[in-house]
């Protein structure tokens, strides 16, 4: 059996980043509209309707697919905004829409029965029964697996389901079950599920206090980092806190995911596509990461060793982990 090369799914926060990803060797690119319908609703980021249409055309002309993330949970009384996003993305020629909300999946499955629906990581479908529920009920064609599973668990899931699986391979790392976390709205009133932001910049304050860089979120101190130590995002779950005599990163160190070395195992586990996190990152990041993973994917398909990369420079904390893919993480 000829092995199919692992699909590299690349982030794009801007039209320029989309072109960069396509030119650097992306197999598909995911992006979102410039409003609260997507989970990277950051200032200055994302696509207008016109930009989306142009971006999809640019990608299509080069054989690259565009996946549109509409992966927040529609607000009661305002669902029309999300319905329009689904309709417009598919009208623009998106290869698929990436959805998380049950109500929105029901809408898309009914209105666009012949189009591809991908289940967002925000739906946190973490076992075969949950995935089969979504497949049977809404006809999803692919699931983005939550970052809580080991490689062995992913292999077991793939034996029990018929839809494609996509897993995160590089970038920011959620340590909580995605789509089920209200830490950000507790501290700031703005949440990934409702507003498409986590630990939003609008509520972040950096201050240099003596030798320390202090980061506060909604008034809560998340970090105090001495000079010359890599600075993290003030993301709640990677904050430094205290409990009893313990002082440190209670939830997770400020590290990023890099599972490049696990690509052969992931391929054997039946994974179809590898997702790179980072729609909020720059063209420079997209260029370097996409090129490295395209190379790695080609090497993997040819049965060659995965080339070593220097991507740690780009990562939060400038340290990487294989995360939940190895059981010791738990």
């Amino acid at each position, binding site marked *: 059996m000829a092995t199919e090369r692992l699909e590299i799914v690349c982030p794009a926060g801007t039209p320029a980043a989309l072109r960069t990803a396509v030119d650097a060797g992306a197999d598909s690119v995911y992006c979102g509209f410039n409003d609260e319908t997507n989970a990277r609703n950051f200032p200055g980021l994302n696509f207008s309707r016109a930009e989306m249409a142009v971006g999809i055309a640019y990608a299509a002309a080069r054989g690259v697919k565009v996946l549109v993330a509409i992966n927040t*949970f*529609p*607000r*009661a*009384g305002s*669902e029309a905004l999300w319905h329009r996003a689904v309709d417009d993305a598919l009208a623009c020629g998106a290869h698929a829409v990436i959805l998380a*909300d*049950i*109500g*929105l999946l*029901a*809408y898309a499955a009914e209105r666009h029965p012949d189009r591809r629906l991908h289940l967002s990581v925000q739906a*946190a*479908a*973490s*076992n075969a*029964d*949950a995935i*089969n*529920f979504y497949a049977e009920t809404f006809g999803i064609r692919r699931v983005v697996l939550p970052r*809580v*599973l080991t490689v062995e*668990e992913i292999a*077991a899931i793939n034996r029990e389901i018929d839809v494609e699986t996509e897993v995160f391979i590089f970038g920011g790392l959620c*340590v*909580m*079950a995605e*789509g*089920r*976390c*209200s*830490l950000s*709205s*507790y*501290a*700031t*009133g703005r*949440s990934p*599920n*409702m507003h498409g932001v986590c630990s939003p910049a609008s509520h972040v304050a950096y201050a240099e206090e003596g030798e320390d860089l202090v980061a506060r979120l*909604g008034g*809560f*101190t*998340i*970090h*105090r980092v001495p000079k010359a130590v890599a600075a993290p995002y003030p993301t709640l*779950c990677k*904050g430094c*806190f*205290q*409990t*009893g005599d*313990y002082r440190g990163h*209670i*939830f*997770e160190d400020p590290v990023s995911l890099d599972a490049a070395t696990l690509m052969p195992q992931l391929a054997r586990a039946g994974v179809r596509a590898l997702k790179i996190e980072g729609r909020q990152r720059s063209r420079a990041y997209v260029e370097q990461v996409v090129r490295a993973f395209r190379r790695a994917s080609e090497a993997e398909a040819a049965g060659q060793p995965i080339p070593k990369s220097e991507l740690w420079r780009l990562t939060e904390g400038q340290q990487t982990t294989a995360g*939940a893919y190895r059981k*010791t*993480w*738990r």
Partner: protein
Amino acid sequence: MELTVGPLLFHWATDAWSDFYARLADEAPVDRVVIGESVCSKRLPLYADRITEAVERLERAGKTVVLTSLALVTLPRERRAAAGLFAQTGHEVEIDDLTLMRWAGKGDDAHCPGFSIGPLVNVYNESTLRFFAARGARSVCLPPELPFASVASLAAAAQPLGIGVEVFAFGRVPLALSARCYHARVHGRTKDSCQFVCDRDPDGMVVRTLDGQDFLAVNGVQTLSYNCCNLIDDVGTLRQAGVTALRLSPHSGDFVSVCRAFRSAIDGQGDDPAALLPGHIPAMPYSRGFMFGATGAE
């Protein structure tokens, strides 16, 4: 308006667990009690043999008993346990992970238990509510992070659908779940050899910022608010909006008094039901930020 006691989220000693439900059965003026383990599947075997007795006692006292599911189902034994909940027909099941929708509402009533949707399932809008109503869910406890405007919209939509709408009205608010156990991590253990260190903190392990500000509470794989949600002064507003039930989440101390205070508020008895609330150890400041404030912690 009904009063529901949510599942006990924390890990208590087995006798404390039994005593809690015995007192709840005999003394607490509540309508529904959700019982079982929703946080960590490792804890369940420690008190599994006490559940039957507790359920019988609660039912003898006229309470409706609902069996909870686990909130994050990944392991094979967790999936088997989830499927097992739908192999019985004696009790309604509360779904706290969509995994269970694989079986819910599939058979006729004689072969399938009734079910409701718990607060850890994302019900943010009318379409999602309609989906669960069409599948046969009896009620939905809304996610605690929803603002009042959303609660009001959903309660209005629920009425014609014939599905109940419950809100999280008392207790530390569940904020996040993980595959990783933070109690074990803080105590330098792995999840597999945790030795149930979470039993040291009957209301969660308080997490403070580096500047000494109280912030969160850790309960094994779960993270909760430090503040205690308390909507006792909002009962009238919620009822008017069409909310049909309030959820009280168990804590140590005199929880029966919490139930009584909320019952007084619902029944409109006494001038100040909030004054009936007991003090807490450790002290937990009250908050209504998620529903009525700018931030959850407010």
